[in-house]
């Protein structure tokens, strides 16, 4: 427990640093409507590093960093100049093209030198869990310098300035993204960039408040994502990205209540929830009636949560067969696990099994696998038959439930028929 926590706090510190700078850049990026620019810049930097690698420079050396920076600056020039494009073709189109071409070009280069693949992956898929204090020490001075630069130029960074200021914006952003993507990966950096900024922009129109909201939201969400990753034993980066998605959803749900007619918002929210439930119920009803043997997500979920539900529509014989098959399947799994354990411990303990013994274990494992598959087939078949039998009754019931949940104007309908 404490062991795990010692892993998480450096990751949290890194997240705080990244949120600090990315929330600011996110607000700028939203104002310029160049949402995916971070992906394009990161990919360009990775292409630069790949070129350096192909030319024989070791990874994480000064020349490699130089190539990376040069490519990023080139892309910054391109982005600054094409700002004027926006009138006819959205700049987002160019950003997308930069992204895919840089990615494809890197693949073409890697194809000639497969050792580069790991290198390229490392540039783009950091893992925040394995980042540490040395990463913090490396990024803090850079981010502080760039933050200071932007504060000094605060009047000119609004996105309406001249080409030079646009270039400065994209160049500094490129440097930030290049370092952060290597630490936290593309997905998480995109979340750091967009979600706190979007929530800030949603609830305030002054930059200072937007930043404050973004920072608080970013830190709280990062902490929540890390905690979830710890509590539920999940990969950290992916858990944090989902946490950011959830916090944006919560903010979106809260928005109409905090900024507008509360009663109206509540009415719409309730209607939406009722429609969603009605559609899920009706969809399940149709799925069960049309294809009773196919997956039934709703029924499967209910059965997984409360297996006793099966008693409602299984006959006694079916229930016995189903339970027995489940027990046998589990038994075969245990037997196979046991054999695997025996084989594994024999690798280092006692006299090594001869080839014949290993072959026998292997063939037993194969048989157990097949037998288990057979039992699982029986379980599926029993359930499918039971569902086929009750499909009309259950789907009619589900449809009725769906109608009851749907926010249809019943009173008006009733009034019209009685008239």
């Amino acid at each position, binding site marked *: 427990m404490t062991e795990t926590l010692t892993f998480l706090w450096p990751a949290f510190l890194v997240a705080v640093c990244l949120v600090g700078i990315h929330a600011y850049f996110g607000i700028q990026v939203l104002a310029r409507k160049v949402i995916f620019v971070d992906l394009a810049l990161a990919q360009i930097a990775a292409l630069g590093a790949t070129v350096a690698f192909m030319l024989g420079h070791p990874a994480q050396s000064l020349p490699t960093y130089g190539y990376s920076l040069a490519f990023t600056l080139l892309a910054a020039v391109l982005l600054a100049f094409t700002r004027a494009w926006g009138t006819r073709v959205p700049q987002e189109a160019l950003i997308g093209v930069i992204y895919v071409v840089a990615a494809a070009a890197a693949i073409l280069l890697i194809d000639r030198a497969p050792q580069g693949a790991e290198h390229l992956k490392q540039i783009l898929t950091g893992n925040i869990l394995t980042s540490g204090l040395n990463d913090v020490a490396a990024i803090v001075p850079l981010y502080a310098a760039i933050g200071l630069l932007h504060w000094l130029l605060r009047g000119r960074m609004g996105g309406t300035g001249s080409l030079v200021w646009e270039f400065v914006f994209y160049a500094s952003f490129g440097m930030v993204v290049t370092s952060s993507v290597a630490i936290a990966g593309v997905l998480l950096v995109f979340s750091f960039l967009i979600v706190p900024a979007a929530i800030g922009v949603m609830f305030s129109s002054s930059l200072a408040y937007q930043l404050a909201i973004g920072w608080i939201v970013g830190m709280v969400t990062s902490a929540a994502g890390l905690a979830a990753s710890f509590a539920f034993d999940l990969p950290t980066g992916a858990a944090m990205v989902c946490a950011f998605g959830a916090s944006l959803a919560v903010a979106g749900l809260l928005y109409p209540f905090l900024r507008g007619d509360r009663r109206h918002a509540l009415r719409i929210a309730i209607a939406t929830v009722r429609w969603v439930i009605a559609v899920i119920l009706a969809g399940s009803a149709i799925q069960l009636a049309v294809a009773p043997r196919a997956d039934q997500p709703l029924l499967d979920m209910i059965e997984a949560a409360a297996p006793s539900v099966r008693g409602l529509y299984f006959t006694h014989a079916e229930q016995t067969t189903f339970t027995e098959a489940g027990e046998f399947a589990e038994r075969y799994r245990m037997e196979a696990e046991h054999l695997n354990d025996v084989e594994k411990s024999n690798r280092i303990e006692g006299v*090594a099994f001869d080839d014949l013994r290993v072959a026998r274990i292997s063939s037993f494992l194969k048989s157990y696998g097949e037998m288990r598959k057979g039992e699982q087939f029986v379980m599926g078949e029993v359930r499918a038959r039971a569902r086929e039998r009750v499909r009309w009754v259950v789907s009619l019931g589900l449809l009725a439930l769906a109608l009851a949940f749907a926010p249809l104007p019943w009173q008006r309908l009733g009034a019209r028929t009685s008239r």
Partner: protein
Amino acid sequence: MVLRFAVIAAWLALLSPAFAQQRLQVVTTTTDLRSLTEAVGGDLIAAINLVPASMDAEDYQPKPQDILRLKNARMLVRVGLDYDLWVDKLVLQAGTRDLGRGGSGYVDASFAIAVLELRGMSVGPGDGHAHGSGNPHYWLDPKNAEIVTGNILEALARIDPANAARYEANRLAFLARLQAKLSEWEAKLAPLKATPIVAYHNSWPYFARRFRLDFVAFIETKPGVPPSPAHLAGIVKTMREREVRIVIREPHEPKRDVAFVADKAGASVVTLAASVGGLPQAGDYISLFDVNVEALKAAAAR
């Protein structure tokens, strides 16, 4: 420019049938199988591998040229066990029926191998493999080369019966050399018996069985999924408790995650090749083990 290409193309067209008549063309999916095929075929065959050295064969994306390579080949040697599933589709596209499953030039090298870590259809917890057909890294047990070269010999003798005796002699000579080497490797790794080792990916069960090594944990729990904090903490704890000094990484695996774990537990990272060509010195099947054995020995001495 165009003229140059035309000349080269004409030259290749002239050359390739003549070449094909001289030597039997064999395509293998991986470099390991190529090395073993060459050991049996000697100078009677010309073998090429589809997956470049040090690339992960499990997510290889075939190129248009690969279809051409299959079209010109009379024999295909594959790893099997769901390791190189993409080759089935490629054979269909090339339209070479002899190289498909059951064809005269088709060799599934895993045939008759005693497969380890079979877990039926389900994925066992924490072993880092999604293979329903067991762990596919069987070539990392030198003893399994006997079976693999046997499979290759059978197919070569079927396609080219006139030279069957020469293929057989080649194989026996190779196996004799391998046997001598195996004793040498076993002697070198004997001090490492039951030494606890952590690896990034579970590529090593066959290697571990042959050389009696103890792989206690794997950093990657499922292919392509980064480890969770609890899993990493568990590994570091195991490493401290069992005093693991060695963490194995393959050249295509993330340096940073491996270094992180090794650093926390005070172990050293050893880069091993799981395939021929994975490291520059591992040029063929025998030097693959030479390199790995030396690297492990050096790490244990540290």
